[in-house]
């Protein structure tokens, strides 16, 4: 089951002003490929048709035509040459990765910077820059100042604090390694690989990290005696919500890296002081793009399947939830088949605070929120619940979430309706669970693939979920 991409799978991360997302990279005949539709869908309105040998694609107002096994395509009426052949698999167009830096500007009309070895694609001017400032006080503090808010996954291992920037378009500080003239914090190194950037801070003592300056600064400092007990032990990852300080503590360093004496770079603004030691866990939300793979869902138009709309919508919702301090598990991040039981099991095992299933329909207007159609039961007497009514104990909170979404959307004059539905796997998950069905907006069916329309809906859902986070059992 591909509930979440594994670290071994190859990925490409795409950073653009409208969306940040990750796509799987496929290997064909020794070359790396990525799905063209999946690549373009989050960026604009896409429609396509294929007879298995030719693929006609329209992105916003740009027409293109591709042929399977050919290296020549036509985009905006002009020839375009690939270095390796274009492929069509199951009516899905695959483009070689090494052509993206020249192919995408033809569609997007903007600059594209593709770091092919790291599989990181920057569309437009989205890069986040970093500068370092070391305070040699006691304990020493290293301030990492970013040009925009960041949200890395922070983990620790002996002698190292590691920050992985998967969804932040962090760009290289200009050098792979920076050494500091300090006995405790000795070095910072930057690397990027498989769609992520990684920043490591090397030290001789346990380190902790805290956010400040609205997540534009991460302060890494040595742990003062007595504060470790309040932090997360071992190598667990711990992060905070957008407005909450976070702190990680590392275990005792077992090694001693060699320190060089190069002066640290400086930033113009000194970082605010590190907040008091306190640990926060980001609540986990499971987002489930319904259907996928062999199961196409509703045929929204002759060429548009429900499974494709739900996937693009889910990626946007993931981003919006992450911005509001949630960790997000996307049950599928590609066109894969998952059974309803697999989806429910993945959500239950993850022990998320909320499960959101995403659907799309060409009927009606706006959006519809569904909760499980089960009789409300009293509290469970034991640890086990019947599979078909596992949702029953959480249903009251699910209805609170549903009501919050309706209230948020109505405030924004977005047509929305709420009702119960006998919809699996809502019945089979034991945490608060809702299903969202995206329907066309004022522009009709084309809204279902509109990044702006989906973004607006996703933001409203994320706002509503964040507004009831205390009801989800999340500690502020």
């Amino acid at each position, binding site marked *: 089951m591909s509930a979440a991409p594994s670290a071994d799978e190859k990925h490409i991360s795409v950073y653009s002003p409208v969306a940040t997302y990750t796509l799987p990279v496929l290997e064909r005949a020794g070359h790396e490929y990525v799905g063209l539709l999946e690549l373009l869908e989050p960026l604009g309105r896409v429609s396509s048709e294929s007879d298995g040998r030719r693929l006609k694609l329209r992105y916003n107002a740009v027409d293109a035509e591709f042929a399977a096994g050919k290296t020549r395509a036509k985009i905006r009426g002009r020839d375009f040459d690939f270095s390796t052949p274009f492929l069509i698999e199951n009516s899905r167009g695959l483009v070689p990765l090494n052509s993206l830096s020249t192919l995408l500007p033809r569609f997007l009309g903007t600059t594209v910077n593709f770091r092919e070895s790291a599989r990181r694609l920057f569309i437009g001017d989205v890069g986040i820059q970093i500068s370092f400032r070391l305070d040699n006080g006691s304990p020493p503090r290293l301030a990492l100042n970013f040009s925009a808010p960041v949200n890395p996954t922070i983990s620790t291992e002996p002698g190292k604090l590691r920050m992985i920037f998967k969804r932040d378009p962090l760009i290289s500080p200009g050098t792979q390694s920076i050494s500091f003239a300090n006995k405790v914090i000795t070095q910072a190194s930057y690397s990027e690989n498989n769609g992520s950037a990684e920043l490591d801070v090397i030290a001789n003592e346990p380190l902790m990290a805290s956010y400040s300056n609205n997540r534009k600064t991460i302060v890494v400092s040595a742990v003062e005696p007595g504060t470790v007990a309040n932090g997360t032990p071992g190598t667990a990852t711990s992060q905070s919500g957008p407005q909450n300080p976070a702190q990680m503590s590392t275990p005792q360093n077992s090694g001693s890296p060699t320190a060089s004496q190069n002066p640290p770079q400086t930033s113009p603004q000194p970082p605010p002081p590190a907040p008091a030691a306190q640990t926060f866990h980001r609540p986990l939300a499971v987002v489930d793009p319904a259907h996928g793979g062999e199961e196409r869902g*509703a045929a929204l138009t002759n060429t548009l399947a429900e499974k494709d709309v739900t996937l693009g919508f889910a990626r946007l919702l993931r981003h919006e939830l992450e911005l509001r301090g949630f960790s997000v598990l996307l049950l599928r991040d590609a066109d894969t088949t998952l059974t309803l039981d697999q989806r429910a099991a993945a959500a239950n095992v993850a022990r998320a605070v909320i499960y959101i299933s995403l659907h799309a*329909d060409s*009927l009606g207007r706006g959006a519809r929120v569904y909760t499980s*159609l089960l009789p409300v039961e009293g509290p469970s007497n034991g640890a086990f619940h019947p599979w078909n009514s596992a949702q029953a104990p959480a249903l009251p909170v699910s209805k609170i979430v549903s009501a919050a979404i309706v209230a948020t959307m109505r405030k924004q004059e977005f047509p929305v309706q709420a009702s*119960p*539905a006998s919809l*699996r796997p809502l*019945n089979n998950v034991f945490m608060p669970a809702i299903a969202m069905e995206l329907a066309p907006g004022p522009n009709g069916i084309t809204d279902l693939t509109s990044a702006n329309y989906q973004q607006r809906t996703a933001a409203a859902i994320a706002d509503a979920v964040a507004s009831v986070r205390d009801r989800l059992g999340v500690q502020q």
Partner: protein
Amino acid sequence: MIPRHLLIGVAALLLLVVSMGIYLRHMRQQVKKLEPPAASLSPVAPPTSGPTETVTLYVADDAAGTLRPRSAQIPLPGGRQQRAEELLRALLRIYQEPGAAHPLSPDADIRSIYLVDPGAAVIDLNAAFADQHRSGILSEQLTVNSLIETLAVNVPGILRVNILVGGQTRDTLAGHADLTQSFDVLTIEQASNQ
């Protein structure tokens, strides 16, 4: 020289043959008009007996996303099971009218309804009902709610309902509405009133 009476006899016989041919053709055309077309697959209206009754059908409206009660006068047989089947067929006919607010396939039909005491009903839909149903949560749930609420309101004593397709259990109606569980009538009524 052929005798004159012989010529008249032959001419009369020829006239008779032509007349008989014309008459035969006419008769064949008449028979064709009376025979039903062999390819017609329209369902024959069920033989219903019993007095006409006023019933309340809960009719789905896709645009509004709700059920609307509608009174109808239909002949209902005496037996509970036949009564239940006629009710839902009357409901189906509304959905099969041109321009219906919740269109269903013209081939959709109710195969049978089984009333099992105490309080259980099983609605058996034909395959075309599900195979040609529009896919989507709203549309499928409205269909389910409409069938169950119409049945429960007009046939007293039904507390829960199962829906089969072609005599067998089916995961979903058209990809969304879960048909594997029993529907609690009270819950459906509450859901429809929301």
